[in-house]
């Protein structure tokens, strides 16, 4: 009976009376960094659970794709084009494109995949797309190591401009990838079609950038207007930045390669792209906040 229990002691809580659900969006994610770190670690560990080669797969995967591209395009299709150190050209582009496609596709699936958590626990839901992005960022490291070794073998030396280019490219893709992941992860909850649509889009991404063909080909075959359209793709700029960082330095005459193969005002363009991506992220956050209420019931 209720009177059987001793009188409860008084517990003083010095917290304000507030809404129990998280309302600060992305800021909330960074306020709970410890949880974010655990989620990222969980993803990374779970991915290679029960596999003998473990993390080695994240070397093997990009390597095999790289060899495929390098062989088909470099050795078979573009034989006459004669791009210097074509392998580095392909691989430096490939890393940043892969970072983007991974963020985009796993980010899109992130909320649906963490259904049980989303439906039952009060976790800021932005946590999942953001952690998908960070997991992809983590997987950039192994191919970067391979790229560095290969570039050095071709006589590449680090330069300040190149390092700046790497930072700019990663920042751009982190912002853009998170924005798209936020937007499409909610969309995917409402209609699973979005998950499939994203995969379709990613096919275009891989061939819409100067990765398996040189940029000079675009300069030569498209008129000024269409070249500008091509360069308005943030992925193109990110790929060029990575090639500026690694490929240019690995050719015989870096200055000439830079002048011939890089778009004009590369750094200015990339800063504009970063600004655009930041605005996109803000918009995505607003859409996310608006749709978020309906997520638990639609899962």
């Amino acid at each position: 009976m209720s009177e059987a229990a001793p009188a409860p002691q008084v517990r003083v809580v010095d917290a304000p009376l507030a809404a129990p659900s998280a309302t600060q969006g992305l800021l909330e994610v960074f306020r709970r960094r410890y949880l974010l770190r655990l989620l990222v670690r969980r993803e990374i560990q779970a991915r290679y659970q029960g596999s003998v080669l473990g993390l080695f797969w994240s070397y093997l995967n990009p390597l095999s794709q790289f060899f495929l591209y390098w062989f088909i395009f470099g050795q078979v299709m573009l034989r006459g084009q004669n791009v210097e150190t074509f392998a580095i050209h392909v691989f430096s582009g490939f890393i940043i494109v892969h970072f983007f496609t991974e963020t985009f596709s796993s980010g899109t699936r992130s909320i649906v995949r963490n259904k049980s958590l989303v439906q039952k626990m009060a976790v800021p839901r932005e946590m999942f797309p953001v952690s998908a992005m960070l997991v992809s960022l983590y997987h950039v490291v192994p191919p970067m190591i391979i790229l560095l070794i290969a570039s050095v073998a071709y006589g590449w030396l680090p330069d300040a401009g190149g390092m700046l280019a790497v930072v700019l490219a990663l920042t751009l893709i982190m912002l853009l990838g998170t924005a798209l992941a936020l937007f499409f992860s909610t969309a995917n909850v409402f209609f699973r079609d979005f998950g499939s649509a994203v995969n379709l889009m990613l096919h275009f991404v891989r061939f819409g950038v100067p990765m398996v063909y040189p940029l000079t080909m675009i300069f030569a075959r498209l008129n000024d207007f269409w070249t500008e359209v091509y360069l308005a793709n943030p992925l193109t700029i990110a790929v060029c930045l990575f090639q500026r960082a690694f490929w240019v330095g690995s050719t015989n005459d870096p200055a000439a390669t830079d002048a011939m193969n890089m778009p004009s005002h590369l750094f200015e363009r990339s800063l504009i792209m970063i600004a655009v991506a930041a605005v996109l992220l803000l918009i995505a956050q607003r859409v996310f906040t608006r749709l978020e209420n309906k997520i638990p019931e639609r899962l």
Partner: protein
Amino acid sequence: MAVSIQVENAVKEFTLRYHRNLKDLTVAKIRGQQTTDSFRAVDDVSFTLEQGDTLGLMGLNGSGKSTLLKLVNGTMRPDSGSVKTRGRIAGLIATGAGFHPQLTGRENIYLNAAILGLSERETNRHFDEIVEFADIGKFLETPVGHYSSGMYARLGFSVAVHVDCDIFLADEVLAVGDKPFKRKCMQKMQEIRESGRTIVYVSHAAGSVRKMCNRVIVLEKGVKAFDGDVDEGIRFLKYGNDEDQPDEVDNLDADDDNLGADI
């Protein structure tokens, strides 16, 4: 005393969609059939709990108890009205919801605790108690996917009760687990109650509600139908006279047996 949970005219509406693909949807539209429908799972519910209150939330299946609990927990936001809480919330809305089947018991304890808002240091401090209470022994380093359902539930319960929270929510928690564990759970719940935490306890078992709570709210189709004294609330639901639920339940063993009817 300070207000701990304040719910004001909370409404949560769910939309039912009858057709999920374009073909079905088009056909239904052409025939003039209804394609969506909405219902209110929680309809204009208001109540205020002071710190240290223990509320028994009762009602038939589908009356909106769990949805109301999710509103309090912050998993869902009300469509209109407001829900406000003070302090950290833990509970057993879903034991082990945050568990990842491929991670070990140890890793899951840290993850689950982090989701409930604990820092790494706080988790370290409670870690031994959590493991001891869950009584999973050598399985601590085994992926939880291989656990028996009882072990899974024990671990989840253990994490939830060891979080130093101000509000504790329990949704049909004692439905799982064997008799000794249920007894341990009941004891722990009493401890939580005595420590002055606010408790919202969802259950069909009149006996345990009587033991735990000092107030009962009965929901009927999302609407608050009764709010007040425990015994009256149970009488309101006509649970008290069930043949398997004798009115005078005062020893824990008899109660434990009845808890089986929770599900």
